């Protein structure tokens, strides 16, 4: 009678080791590829996020691609619809603030705050580009002291934040 018992043959130690080496090799390759992507992408595409005051006061920033943020002066907005060119001015807002809406309002009322002319080419005029909006721009300051923006983002906190205390509610004499 044949012996029906069967023992699973052990996997040769050498083969196991070579499989493990393969896994480690592939893992290291992937890790190196991802690191290369992150490092080279960051070196090429990284930009400082600075204020208007920092941009204007430091000559090393001139001509360099940076990201800036400022308060939009509504009266300065011009749109050339034929050439799709937007021109406007932004005013410096500080790095730190508690209430963005208040910071934007105060910046625009401060006549001594640094101002910057901005030019955005071949762009649709965004709905949010209006007075007291916060503009976040990517671009470079040209020799003509105009900031040529390639990317324009806008936030309009005074329009959308819930009011802390709306004006007018208390101005009814019959309440007293």
């Amino acid at each position, binding site marked *: 009678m044949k012996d029906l018992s069967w023992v699973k043959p052990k996997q040769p130690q050498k083969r196991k080791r070579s499989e493990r080496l393969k896994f480690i090799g*592939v893992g290291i390759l992937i890790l190196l590829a991802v690191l290369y992507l992150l490092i080279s*992408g960051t070196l090429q595409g*990284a930009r400082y996020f600075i204020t208007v005051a920092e941009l204007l006061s430091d000559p090393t920033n001139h001509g360099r691609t940076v990201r800036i*943020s400022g308060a939009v002066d509504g009266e300065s907005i011009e749109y050339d*619809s034929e050439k799709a060119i937007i021109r406007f001015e932004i005013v410096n807002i500080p790095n730190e603030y508690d209430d*963005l809406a208040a910071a934007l309002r105060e910046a625009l009322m401060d006549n001594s705050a640094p101002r910057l002319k901005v030019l955005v080419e*071949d762009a*649709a005029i965004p*709905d949010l580009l209006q007075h007291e909006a916060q503009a976040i721009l990517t671009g470079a300051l040209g020799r003509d002291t105009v900031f040529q923006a390639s990317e324009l983002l806008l936030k309009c906190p005074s329009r959308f934040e819930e009011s802390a205390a709306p004006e007018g509610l*208390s101005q009814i004499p019959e309440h007293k």
Partner: protein
Amino acid sequence: MSAEIGLAALTLAFALALYAIFASVIGARRASSQLILSGRNAALLTFPALLLATGALVGALTSEQYQLSYVYSVTDPQTPALYRFTALWGSQRGSLLLWSLLMSVFTCAAIGLNWRSERHLMPQAVAYMMATLAFFLGLSLFIENPFARWWILPEAPPAEQVVSTVLIPPGAIAPTDANLRAGAEGLNPLLRHFGMVIHPPMLYLGFVGFTIPFAFALAALAAGDLSTGWIQATRRWSLIAWICLSCGLILGGRWAYDVLGWGGYWGWDPVENAAFLPWLVGTAFIHSVMIQEKRGMLKLWNMILVISTFSAVMFGTFATRSGVIESVHSFARSEVGFPMLAFWAVMTLVALATLLWRWRRGELRDERQFANLLSRESLFVLNNVVFIALFLAIFWGSFGLPITSELLLGKEVTIGPQTFEFYVVPLFIAMYILMGLAPLSAWSATSLRRFGAGLKAPLALTMLSILALALSGTSLIVAALGYGVALFAGYVALLEIFRGARARRRSLDEGWLRAVTALFRRNQRRYGGYIVHLGVTVIGIGVVASTVFQTETQHTILRGEAISVQDYSLRFDDFIRAQAVDGRLMRIAAVTVFRAGGEIARLRPRIDDYPQMPMKIAGAHSTLENDFYVLLMGGDGERATFRIYINPLVNLVWWGGVLLVLGTVVAAYPKIVPK
């Protein structure tokens, strides 16, 4: 009255959640079934309490109770009924309440469905779910209370006379209804869109849904039951959360495409990315749990993934709601930022510490080892690596780099959309290739010959497609690396369905329709997964075409004149001024679109002038081939400026999304067992 009812219900829900944590933890420690049941019942009661609180807020919104400062800030007398309801999630305070309501719904469902089968894990799971709920209810109650009301303090200095508080300050009087109605601010116009009606709740459902697998995983760690039980209990919850998150992301893209007027749907904004991050880790998780279920492997890795998904959800919520991240989408800067960051850090650290403890005790050892680089489990792991690499790259660009540079250099460094694309394009190519290769491999080991045999047909079809695209004028790089990799993954999925059906036809002599239906019934998870892969293929093709081949032009023309772009032309017919029922003024351009000389559509791009801002509403002629998308940039009766985008195959992005959701529903649907 709504404010009082809502506040009482909110407070009750908070107390119930706290009690449920206490009773569940003590009950589990003392093995007291009475306490455990009491904790469960308290957790269940949070739902009616929160339903009442939410109902009170919806009632206040729909019945125009402007004394509630939330109602005042998100509606006005002109707001249509639908947007009165959706204003519930129109701003921070209401949406936090909705978050809590959805959390309680998921908790009740998890208790209802898993109480018997996972009885030993439930007390701890309930405690973790209730801890999350209690945290959000605490935010609603103490920081962002939706039931706060306007009060006038006549004796206070003028700048501090109007306050919004939960409790009535001494000597306060209420503003008149007429004054409140006149000042009410109305819903942000950008949120008046179908996508925004569904997008936020879907996103919250996805976020909240991933709390359930996290709670079960931590319960398993706490109870020391590290078998696959917790994975089987939560697999469906993960899929439901994943569907909701996917829907939320797709609808968010559609909203951006329709409303933001830039002809695109994804801008690599930090807040968009914050919602995408949990999706990436969640996707890795729903793939890798299969390996634990089938092979008893990756136990530690799955725990790390489920903790990371929850952590990404909490971090995303913090990024969106704290206002500390510069983004066009973020909420106003709020005091919820620090508590959210603290909660995120505490929960993540507690989870990781428990995991480390169990791991050091050797309780998370795998039952098998990886045997072959071409085995299905190895390819799944590679797929996980790609998803995690995507997660790390997007996290680094959105948050890691700005925060690290601020700490080390004292200046914030950021990257733009091009750099994000540089990071993610190679990783997405790798993802599509792996999506094609993995279904061709077998569990445990696959021989190179077998692998090659399975590869022949999809590879041949992909090559033929690339050749056809290159001959039709598409650049070879885009045809091969863009369409090619996506098509390869799609062909594999289609061929796998075809092979399965053919085998059934041969062995059981069934018709094609019956064979395919039976195939899906027999293995819903596998074939549902293939439908998801097909959806991702369709999305990929749509994304490549609409980003690489988008055409954009802008011209000002007189009435009767036309703008030509490709083989289309747009004729400016008329300029109309009108007023909508809700009071907004509308500037409407009537235009006719021709293609190859024949009229194909009459569109009405317009500008809606809301009191807060003007808003451009695009006119679009949509076909599967492309979207002719036109914006009215401005003009008067005689002249008008139009910006035209031609977005090839953009609708595949949405249709691919539908396929993806459909496939996930098939995979998650409870198995139909024939009687």
